């Protein structure tokens, strides 16, 4: 089956006065129809840049998509004209943003902000768009009468639900959710995740969920890609990653989650910091922080190793490396 979204060797850089930021360095992944991919990684791993490049919304300048192919529904995104791209944005691919406090326009009613997406893409009257808007609000559990209200009259969780309604309004084939729960408090997070999971099933939409929260990934996704310093270091099904993580970075991430059955002193943070994107380390980007670092890791970039539908980029699993 052909994938709905297929990204191949995507490379994005930002040219700034201080130098070149290597934000995304040759990543590849697929999302099938109705599939859900969790893109996991620390802040600065290049997750949001990846998301924006799928919509061709990388601010340029300073952003440059250096190479790579993104095909969506069989069409090459980079070959499309800006007008054709506008027809895809918000209609076939839509996005839910991280901070609901700043991602809604403060001077427009939430109703207008939802219905304008409908009007832009569907051949409907304002009245039909309003009706659809009210339906969408009800779907995200906001009373439809509140469409006349402004963002400042809603709480953070409700605003994010408005963002979800906005993203789903045109029944897109793919939703990119960029840390949709990061800015919310924990109880609201659970509600929003639940809502997103249900609506995704109802609308049978594919989703790319960007997060640094492995718990959220476990709730929603069926495949997981782990990003580090602009690369996908490991990718596999939810079970493969959660039960049998291979890459030292992935295992390190899991060790950061407190286990309720064990003593809390068991949390083992990954030592060190993400590498400076202006000046990435040689060889494997993770080697300065890796507990299993070998000689070869410092000089040679590891190859992608594919087996049983999973990929890992680590010398430990290369031929001649240590096998488990």
């Amino acid at each position, binding site marked *: 089956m052909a994938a709905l979204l297929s990204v191949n060797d995507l490379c994005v850089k930002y040219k700034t006065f201080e130098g070149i930021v290597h934000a995304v360095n040759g990543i590849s992944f697929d999302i099938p129809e109705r599939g859900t991919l969790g893109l996991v990684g620390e802040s600065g791993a290049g997750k949001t840049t990846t998301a924006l490049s799928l919509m061709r919304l990388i601010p340029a300048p300073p952003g440059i998509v250096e190479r790579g192919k993104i095909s969506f529904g069989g069409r090459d995104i980079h070959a499309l004209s800006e007008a054709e791209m506008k027809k895809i944005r918000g209609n076939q691919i839509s996005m839910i*943003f991280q901070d609901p406090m700043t991602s809604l326009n403060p001077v427009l009613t939430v109703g207008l902000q939802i219905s*304008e997406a409908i009007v832009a893409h569907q051949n409907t009257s304002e009245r039909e768009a309003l009706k659809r808007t009210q339906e969408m609000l009800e779907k995200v559990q906001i009373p439809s009468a509140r469409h006349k209200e402004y963002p400042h009259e809603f709480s953070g969780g409700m605003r994010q639900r408005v963002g979800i309604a906005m993203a789903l309004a045109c029944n897109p084939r793919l939703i990119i959710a960029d840390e949709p729960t990061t800015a919310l408090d924990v109880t609201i997070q659970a509600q929003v995740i639940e809502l997103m999971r249900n609506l995704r099933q109802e609308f049978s939409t594919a989703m790319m969920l960007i997060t640094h929260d492995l718990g959220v990934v476990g709730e929603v996704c069926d495949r997981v890609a782990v990003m580090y310093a602009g690369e996908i270091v490991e990718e596999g099904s939810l079970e493969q990653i959660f039960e049998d993580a291979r890459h030292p970075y992935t295992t390190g991430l899991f060790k950061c989650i407190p286990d309720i059955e064990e003593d809390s002193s068991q949390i083992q943070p990954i030592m060190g910091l993400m590498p400076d994107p202006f000046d990435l380390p040689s060889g494997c980007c993770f080697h300065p922080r890796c507990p299993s670092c070998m000689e070869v890791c410092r000089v040679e970039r590891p190859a992608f190793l594919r087996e049983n539908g999973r990929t890992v980029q680590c010398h430990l699993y290369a031929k001649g490396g240590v096998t488990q």
Partner: protein
Amino acid sequence: MLRYIFRRILFLIPVLLGVSILIFAIIHLAPGDPAEALLGPSATTRDLEELREQLGLNKSLVTQYFTFLTNTLKGDFGRSIRTNNPVLEELLDRFEPSLILAVLSMTLAIAVGIPLGLLAALRQNTWIDTSCNFVALLGFSLPGFWLGLMLMLFFSIMVPILPSSGYGTWQQLIMPTLVLSTNTTAVIARMTRSSMLEVIRQDYIRTAKAKGLSGRLILARHILSNVLIPVVTVAGLHFGHMLGGVVITETVFSIPGVGRLIIDAIRFQDYPVVQGGILFFAFCLSLVNLGVDLIYALLDPRIKAQYRAG
């Protein structure tokens, strides 16, 4: 909303009262004597005494103030010491040219300044942006009197197509409007540019783009009202200043505006005209401020909500 407007108007009372005390005190504490100014150096002490008696200047300051206040409340600003005309009549007479000039200049400044600023921001760091900035800097730095004289030189003397001065025909308004609006246009353009640069980097603009809206719709619906909020503040301040009469422009073009009236009145120590004039300004400025606040409410529902709650 109506309640808010009503409250604001009610609030004018203490403001105007304060202003009246302030002007009264400043005028009467300043050295000089209107009787002397009127009669000239050749006047006898007797003549001076008589005139002071007639003008009520020999009474105590408090009595004078209360006479002024009660008369003002009755709508009587007194008569000019110099011309003996009722002050209110004189003010309204002179206010007309100032008002027309201010409205025309403000309209021009907005019509030119806002598009200029938007264009500069949309083409940031290109030659268009640089030239817009240069024009704005020029407009900001050219002194009004010099610009006025240069315009006169070009359009009244070298190519005589416009009357050099005076007031009465529309042709006579063109050059003063240009001169008066130049500075405001520059300020509005700079303000619009910086506000625009800030707004287009906001998350909600990215959201609008991600919805696949057209660039024109994003500009008209999502950007403009957010951009205009700080611009309105600056425009309001400048408009208030223009209403108060712009002495230099009025002098250069011999326009019988309210600014010159007041300057002349101060020079002749024409107390009633100065008092009435400044009180009138304070009133106009307060109205302009109220107008600006109402435009805020129109642009930003958060501010409107505050007014409702307050």
